[in-house]
């Protein structure tokens, strides 16, 4: 384990008078095992690390990174960031985070099991997943891959404005991809089991998840075009929330690039809809004590009773509109400067279980998975059109499976069309929780 704290503090301490300097360094070790047809197909173990430095001088910002964490890498990145700063435009809103009074949440995100479990035991889990999945159901024609993956990562940030923060976390997961087939037909699906340590994983959960999803689609046809109520599987909801997160970025709002710009206080959803960003929730996969600028993470209600109540800000975005950071700075690693993003978005769950929700909806479409989200959801206009796989719902029961179809609407309409929220919150890797959701009056395009 490298000493990241010392590395970033040394860079921050090298700030010259009139300069603000921030250094962010990260290190991670990953293990990935892939099994196919009873054999280890791939086994990769790797460490990667690097440092990124921001320098603000004369109201201008420069950034540079180096994919290494020797002491010299810190100096190299600092020199390069200094060299880059004069080419940027002066911007009075630029500033590094200032420590505030919010205390960091006490979260246990690191588990010893990732490092202490021998590689052979991790390989055995992937082999077991492959074997059990192949044996589980005669309709499973192929187990395309059975993967075990884990990661142990640490990061640290320090700035000349007094920020000092660091964090270490582990993740561990099993995933399997299967093809189910009958006759000429093939349908595919994936299943997962995720946790922070190998002993939290369940091979059967991953296996049965994949099999159920693939087999359910056998016999899928292109449905008739119609308007109907859709029930989104909780994983689909999580995917859509992660896209929606970008529209609630205070920076995108300030720049007029969000469908929610200028709508603070407005009724944007049905009364029963509340959305909160809360990285201090220990159940959230993206839970974090500190944001990527080193401020303590905190809960931010974004939609309350259908009313838009807040946007997310990092330090810069907050200063654009004269408000404080919501500690929502995120980074894609050491190689990018901080942006604005969500870590733990969740819709407040309802009180009905999924079976009751399906019965209440009666007829409609159950959406098991969606595709083309990035090309199909426009965060500025709100235009929404994605590919779907799932099953028609008849009298609350799963009926004929559906493929090669799309559902379309506008995000603005969909939030006002939510007719039911189930109680089945599920956290998976990603910035949002899943919950089963029913939305009325969506256009299904098929034949």
């Amino acid at each position: 384990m490298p000493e990241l704290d010392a590395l970033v503090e040394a860079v921050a301490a090298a700030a010259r008078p009139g300069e603000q300097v921030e250094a962010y360094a990260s290190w991670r070790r990953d293990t990935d095992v892939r099994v196919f047809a009873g054999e280890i197909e791939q086994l990769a173990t790797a460490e990667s690390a690097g440092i990124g430095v921001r320098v603000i001088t004369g109201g201008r910002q420069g950034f540079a990174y180096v994919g290494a964490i020797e002491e010299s890498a810190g100096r190299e990145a600092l020199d390069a960031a200094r060299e880059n700063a004069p080419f940027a435009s002066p911007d009075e809103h630029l500033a590094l985070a200032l420590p505030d009074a919010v205390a960091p949440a006490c979260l246990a995100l690191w588990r010893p099991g990732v490092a202490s479990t021998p590689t052979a035991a991790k390989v055995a889990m992937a082999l077991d997943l492959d074997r059990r999945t192949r044996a589980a159901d005669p309709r499973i024609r192929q187990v395309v891959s059975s993967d075990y993956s884990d990661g142990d990562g640490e990061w640290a940030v320090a700035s000349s404005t007094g920020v000092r923060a660091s964090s270490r976390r582990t993740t561990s997961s099993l995933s399997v991809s299967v093809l189910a087939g009958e006759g000429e037909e093939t349908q595919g699906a994936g299943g997962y089991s995720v946790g922070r340590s190998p002993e939290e994983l369940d091979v059967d959960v991953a296996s049965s998840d994949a099999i159920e999803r693939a087999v359910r689609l056998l016999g899928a046809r292109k449905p008739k075009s119609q308007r109907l109520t859709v029930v989104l599987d909780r994983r689909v909801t999580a995917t859509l929330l992660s896209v929606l997160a970008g529209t609630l970025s205070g920076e995108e709002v300030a720049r007029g690039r969000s469908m929610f710009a200028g709508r603070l206080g407005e009724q944007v959803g049905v009364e029963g809809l509340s959305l909160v960003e809360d990285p201090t929730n220990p159940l959230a996969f993206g839970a974090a004590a500190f944001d990527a600028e080193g401020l303590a993470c905190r809960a931010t209600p974004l939609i309350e009773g259908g009313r838009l109540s807040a946007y997310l800000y990092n330090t810069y975005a907050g200063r654009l509109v004269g408000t404080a950071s919501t500690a929502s700075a995120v980074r894609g690693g050491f190689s990018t400067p901080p942006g604005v993003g969500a870590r733990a978005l969740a819709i407040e769950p309802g009180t009905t279980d999924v079976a009751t929700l399906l019965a209440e909806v009666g007829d409609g479409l159950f959406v098991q998975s969606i595709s083309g989200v990035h090309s199909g959801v426009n965060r500025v206009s709100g235009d929404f059109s994605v590919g779907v796989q799932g099953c028609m719902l008849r009298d609350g029961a799963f009926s004929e499976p559906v493929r090669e179809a799309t559902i379309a609407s506008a995000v603005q309409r969909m939030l006002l069309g939510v007719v039911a929220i189930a109680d089945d919150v599920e956290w998976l890797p990603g910035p949002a929780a899943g919950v089963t959701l029913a939305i009325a009056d969506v256009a299904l395009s098929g034949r």
Partner: protein
Amino acid sequence: MTADTLLVEPAAVEAAIARALSGGAEFAEVFVEDRRSVAIGLDDRKVEQLSTGRDRGAGIRVIAGETTGFAHTADLSEAGLLAAAEAAAAVARTGSGRTRRVALEGRRAGALSAATVAPESVSKADKVELLRRADEAARASGGEIVQVSAGYGDSRRRILVANSDGLLVSDDQVRVRFGVSCVASGDSGLQTGYESLALTVGFDLFDRYDVEEVAEQAARQALSKLTARPAPSGVVPVVIERGSGGVLFHEACGHGLEADHIAKDASAFAGRVGQMVASPLVTLVDDGTVAEQWGTAAIDDEGRASQRNVLIEDGVLTDYLWDHLRARKEGRSSSGNGRRQSYQHLPMVRMTNTFLLAGKEDPDELVAQTPYGIYVAKLGGGQVNTATGDFVFGMTEAYLIEDGHLTQPLRNANLIGNGPEVLTRIDAVANDFAMSPGSCGKDGQSVPVGCGQPTLRVTGITVGGTADA
């Protein structure tokens, strides 16, 4: 060749390969990469920041039987390479302990795309100036343009590949990209437009292409959609303009022709070589040697020279795309399609520049002969389920065709179809052609690719709009 052009000492590479083979593996490979990049963003009239980066390291791969072991390191000393070789070899340990030393003979890949003006020789101020020019041009396109952002990026990627077959080859890859996005505001809300330039060339890109034109295209796209009506819902004929429609073939069949999907029988195209899989108007090629295109390189990331591969000829499936691993199992040679995002990733079968060859028809006639349908001027990204062949992709600029004429602009929507089915429904291919750049994601790795196609018509494809068709 000097040690500098090779990035590492050849003796260290030889030692690492020997160590990687010491457990009894039959194949070992060292991939060394040194990547430097510059990125500049302009947003809301301000040059946000100029950022530069350097990544340098080596990935070591060992193949023993059915198993691939992999490890990487940022430490390019002999000790660093040996440690990574040891880690990669651990998976393939058979206990034979024999030593096999391979002599390496170096060569440099022939330059396919010599950067005549190295981006590192151009001042940062000149790069910033391009962004300002684009910003002004976009804003001058119309008062409704309320926001403009623009990005410039260049990268120089030097790689070295050595393996236990005695290969030692290096390449120097320079890429430059430029993109502009605009937001237009009107009575019906906000609309977006995006246009980009991206080629495997140096800064001379800007001697040949005008950044103002790129900016005006992005602005025009956003402006045109201000009066757009919802796209229809249902199956309609679609005419796709040359260029960005290449993504249709990338998604609808390219991924399904990758040998890793074929080997696992996870593709709708498995076992179909020699069969008619498309309209006879379709000849599909993947070619990493097309001068200067975004997916072009002299060698792939396994050191194999890029080549032109005909995948579908006059509708008949002729071959799949191969990397070293899959080709080796089949006892054939790689097609030069083993690519990886960086030294931290294992190579896998990937496309380079994938395109449909031009046909004979006049593109205007194609529209004139279409009584009702959709004209897609620009397609955005897509996604495919290779097992079923079902794919989606987004229309980012589209118009309604009525009585052979383009009438209304349409709001964004996805198209959905089945690759093998759509290929058989192409009923007209025009005599024009254009390529466009893209970024292709697979198993979490992203690589630059080119896509291209002539203007063409598909007799029926499902449009995911909200209006009655």
